[in-house]
């Protein structure tokens, strides 16, 4: 796993708890653009350069419907600051979001998959906006400079020099990690995020849910808790979860979740991000992710397909039967991807039933006449 990227994801989750309200007068003004001859202007210049590279990256997802949907959420949260914020969806299956001081936001597709509804997504985006509104990166930059922290400057210099040479997205992650936020800043971003959520009408409990879900997912993985970046760099997560729930309970108020809107907004890329998740082959974690999503959408054919693939690819005793059950559930839905039939071919071949495999292949080719792997499947059937 990309440790840096994951660390950034944690920025979005760390220490979410409510406390005193932040007055808007302390936020950066809408339309803010620092003079280029200031330290802040210099910082913006660096980020503008990184953003130019990001714009042309092959990893950026440019689907219009998805980007329009996310823009709506950003504007609903950011209101007057909306024109100053630009969101890029990066096709990377891990959970991550980040915010640069010039208003460039990154959301990774793994985060989109893991947000059950729009309120959970808003919890992350609101937190990231908190960093922007309070100019946390500039604060860290000045802090590093005042402390003569040459290491931080060196890291920044290397990162900027590398942009365009060693990979846009990787270097953006490096840039982000150069300015890891302080614990106080994370708390402040959480407070602001929760406030933005409430003002926009989202239920605040969603912030606690995201944290809870991540804890449950990591527990199903193969990385020891003591080795996990999450648990190594943050206090007891259970304690934090309790604080978040308490904050949400005190807040009361808004209830909106936006489950259907979220599902519709992601429709064009759902299959893509499910496939990318499966490529990680983190079977236990993916199973948790699909189960959670299926709890909200029990008839979702794509999710049942994904769950079936987890079992087929893991291939432990009993998994092929589990996979077939999941594929059967998928095929009960109109949304089952044609590849469900392909997967059935693979399982039937594994079980030595060529007649059933042939029938599944026929169904696959009816559902996907131009399947690129038709020849390969026929080859397997003939062997």
């Amino acid at each position, binding site marked *: *796993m*990309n*440790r840096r990227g994951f660390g950034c994801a944690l920025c979005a989750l760390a220490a979410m708890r409510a406390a005193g309200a932040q007055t808007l007068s302390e936020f950066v003004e809408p339309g803010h653009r620092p003079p280029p001859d200031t330290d802040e202007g210099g910082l913006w210049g660096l980020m503008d350069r990184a953003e130019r590279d990001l714009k042309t*990256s*092959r*990893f950026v997802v440019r689907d219009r419907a998805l980007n329009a949907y996310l823009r709506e959420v950003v504007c609903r949260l950011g209101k007057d600051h909306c024109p100053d914020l630009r969101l890029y969806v990066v*096709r*990377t*299956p891990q959970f991550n979001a980040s915010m640069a001081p010039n208003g460039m936001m990154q959301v990774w*597709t793994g985060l989109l998959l893991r947000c059950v509804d729009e309120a959970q997504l808003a919890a992350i985006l609101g937190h990231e906006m908190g960093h922007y509104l309070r100019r946390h990166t500039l604060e860290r930059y000045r802090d590093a400079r005042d402390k003569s922290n*040459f*290491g931080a400057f*060196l*890291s920044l210099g*290397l990162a900027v020099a590398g942009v365009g040479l*060693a*990979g*846009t*997205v*990787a270097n953006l992650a490096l840039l982000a990690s150069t300015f890891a936020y302080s614990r106080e800043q994370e708390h402040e971003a959480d407070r602001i995020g929760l406030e933005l959520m409430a003002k926009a009408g989202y239920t605040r409990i969603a912030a606690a849910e995201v944290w809870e879900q991540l804890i449950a997912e990591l527990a199903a*993985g*193969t*990385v*020891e808790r003591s*080795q*996990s*970046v999450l648990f190594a760099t943050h206090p007891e997560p259970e304690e934090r979860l309790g604080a978040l729930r308490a904050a949400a309970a005190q807040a009361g108020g808004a209830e909106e979740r936006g489950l259907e809107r979220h599902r519709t907004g992601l429709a064009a890329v759902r299959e893509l991000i499910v496939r*990318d998740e499966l*490529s*990680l*082959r*983190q079977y236990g*974690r993916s199973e948790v992710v699909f189960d959670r999503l299926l709890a909200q959408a029990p008839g979702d054919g794509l999710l049942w397909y994904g769950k079936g693939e987890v079992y087929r*690819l893991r*291939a432990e005793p009993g998994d092929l039967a589990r996979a077939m059950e999941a594929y059967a559930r998928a095929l009960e839905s109109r949304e089952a991807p044609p590849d469900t039939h392909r997967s059935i071919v*693979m399982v039937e*071949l*594994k079980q030595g039933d060529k007649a059933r495999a042939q029938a599944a292949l026929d169904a696959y080719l009816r559902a996907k006449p131009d399947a*690129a*792997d038709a*020849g*390969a*499947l026929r*080859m*397997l059937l003939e*062997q």
Partner: protein
Amino acid sequence: MIKLSALLFAVALVAGCAAYTLVAPQRQNVADVISVEPGMKWNKMSQSAYEGHVEVWTLDGLTLNTLVFFTGVPDGEPLFVPRFADKARMEKPPVFRSTMNPLEIQELLHATVARFFRTTLAEERNLRAVSIAGGRGFRFETRVVGRDEVERAGVFVGTVAGGKLYGAWFQGARLHYFERYLPEFERIVASAQLTGEAARK
């Protein structure tokens, strides 16, 4: 300054890890299990970023072209993992199973590549049966865009013998380097024989 020193040391360490040995254009033993006859001078890496039952050759450097030989991946082992990564912090890698069919091996390479190169832009196509090293094998084409945004084209050729995976995967930058050296890769594949413990009974 301490960080600067540490950085320079790290750079030197990584650079020093990649020791090259010249491979002459004559019949060569690869890990004593594969015999091939290259037509050009290659460079064999003693400790590449690829960790596993592999041997790695290159002509112009790993970023431009890479030839990975699979020298008998046993059941339960990954195809390869990143050598210089903190594995304790990574999810367990997917592994090869001796019962896998060629399409499953293709899927395994896809997942291995996705993790190794940290990319979502990888695809494989045109899987077909071929004859290799005097036995039945398979072959498919690959395309990978790494975090450096460079697109690399490739060909994977493999066979399972005695429950182990043997094969070769050539990758080159799609612009120029792949097509230029593809005939050399085909020559190597055509010359391949399994030897030693891998020799077909």
